[in-house]
């Protein structure tokens, strides 16, 4: 069989799975990819424009402490209501508030606090996993699996999208001003600390709900790579948000198809596609500059 025929066969097989009622989780994965792309594109653009990728990294890693605590409590004390998602949300919000304090109130260097939250969060999570009865494979939390999501996850991400869109539309000028020039925003009466804390909470919410797709290690990549690629071609924040959402959808969908065809783990495959997309965006921007030197 020629390589072209092999690819055609794999594609046909993929489409048959996509339309097969027994493989509804594959359809869920694509719907999730589409919904998540809105959140990733919008919040990711704020993260990239404000240059707080490391803050997002700290929040995403701190959630392991909450997930570990939830797993430990469920198994050791029978607290079945303490869902790992709830634990992740609590840990993310605590991390976001600590990072907000580090930014505005503490005398400690902000980057040191980021590093501490990042590493201590992971350590606490792993210790909870070790202490919990039975074996827990942290890999599913670290790298996620978009093929294991259910209808509840889809609804949660849809609600997240609505919250993000509403907050961004209503407070777009304030968020943009705080990201671009905090001092001037303060001068115009914008509650800068509240706006920055809102940004941190949006990051936290996005991280928690989207960990199911690519896991906590890779969530930052999907939050930043589409936005960074979009930033090469856009001249305002709302354009960056729109293009980043579209790019994210393309990366996630392409990654899913590749992972299915090559039988590879979905999370790393999606991130690899996003990385290639980002590199292509950098190359395309440079090429545009080369051929149109006056167009900046």
């Amino acid at each position, binding site marked *: 069989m020629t390589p072209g025929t092999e690819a055609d066969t794999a594609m046909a097989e993929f489409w048959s799975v996509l339309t097969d009622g027994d493989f509804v989780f594959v359809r869920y994965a694509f719907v999730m990819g589409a919904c998540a792309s809105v959140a990733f594109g919008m919040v990711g653009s704020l993260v990239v424009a404000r240059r707080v990728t490391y803050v997002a990294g700290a929040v995403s890693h701190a959630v392991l402490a909450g997930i570990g605590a939830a797993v430990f409590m469920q198994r050791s004390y029978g607290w079945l209501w303490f869902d790992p998602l709830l634990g992740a949300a609590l840990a993310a919000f605590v991390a976001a508030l600590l990072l907000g304090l580090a930014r505005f109130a503490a005398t400690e260097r902000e980057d040191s606090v980021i590093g501490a939250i990042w590493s201590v969060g992971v350590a606490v999570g792993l210790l909870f996993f070790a202490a919990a009865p039975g074996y827990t494979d942290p890999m599913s939390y670290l790298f996620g699996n978009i093929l294991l999501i259910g209808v509840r996850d889809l609804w949660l991400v849809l609600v997240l999208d609505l919250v993000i869109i509403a907050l961004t539309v209503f407070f777009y*000028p304030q968020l943009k001003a705080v990201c*671009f020039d905090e001092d001037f925003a303060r001068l115009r009466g914008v509650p800068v600390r509240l706006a920055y804390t809102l940004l941190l909470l949006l990051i936290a919410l996005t991280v928690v709900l989207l960990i199911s797709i690519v896991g906590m290690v890779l969530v930052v990549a999907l939050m930043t790579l589409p936005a960074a690629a979009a930033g090469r071609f*856009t001249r305002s924040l709302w354009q960056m948000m729109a293009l980043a959402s579209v790019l994210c959808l393309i990366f996630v969908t392409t990654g899913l198809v590749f992972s299915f065809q090559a039988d590879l783990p979905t999370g790393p495959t999606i991130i690899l596609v996003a990385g290639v997309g980002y590199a292509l965006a950098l190359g395309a921007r440079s090429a545009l500059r080369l051929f149109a030197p006056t167009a900046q």
Partner: protein
Amino acid sequence: MRGEAAIRFSGVSFAYGSTPVLDDVDLTIGAQQMVCLVGPNGGGKTTLLRLALGFIEPLRGRVEVCGLPPVRGRRRIGYMPQQLEFDAQFPITVREVVAMGRLNGARPGFMSRRDRTVVDEVLDEVDLGGCASAPFGSLSGGQRQRALIARALAVKPEILFLDEPTAMVDARSEARLLAKLRELHSRLTIVMVSHDAAFVANLVETVICVNRRVSVHPAHEISHGMIHELYGDSMKAVLHDHDAGDGSGHSHG
């Protein structure tokens, strides 16, 4: 109106940690005065601006802006920070930068028609109407400076603060700025921080030397000896040509 206090510092002291920056400063800047703060790095010029903007609070003493505490009075200030503080890759157009001047606290939603009119007016006032849709990061140093002045003017301020307005601009842009500031002086109090004594001497009436304490001098009294004493070094040469209308009278040392 001239002579009323736009900014008043009364017995103000400030320190960053254990490093004193300002010591018992008394200073009054009258309404519609144009003054320049000069002095060595770390002397306290920018700290004075930040105290008046309410970004930091004095250890001792009181600061007033238009008779109000800075946090309330600062809405009347149009502030132009140094260009170096901006991220050139930030995705924002010139119009969006200028529109920040029309921000009104946490009021949600889009700009009103009046806000849009003000933004158009100030863009035209600084001759940037044609670049309104251009990315801010793509502008030259002089254009960025004009965009930031437009943003400060969009506030419809009573007081204009300019932090190093001639940094990163060429001689032509500097002459253009000189003319613009002379025009604005007829309706605004202007306070600027500058190391460019040549620019200062051609423009302002009063120079405020800041080096932990302040001393106020008419611009024509500023001499090489005074600058050397203040900075411990030389800076751009001063030509006291206050009648020069086009800014061409100043020289550089």
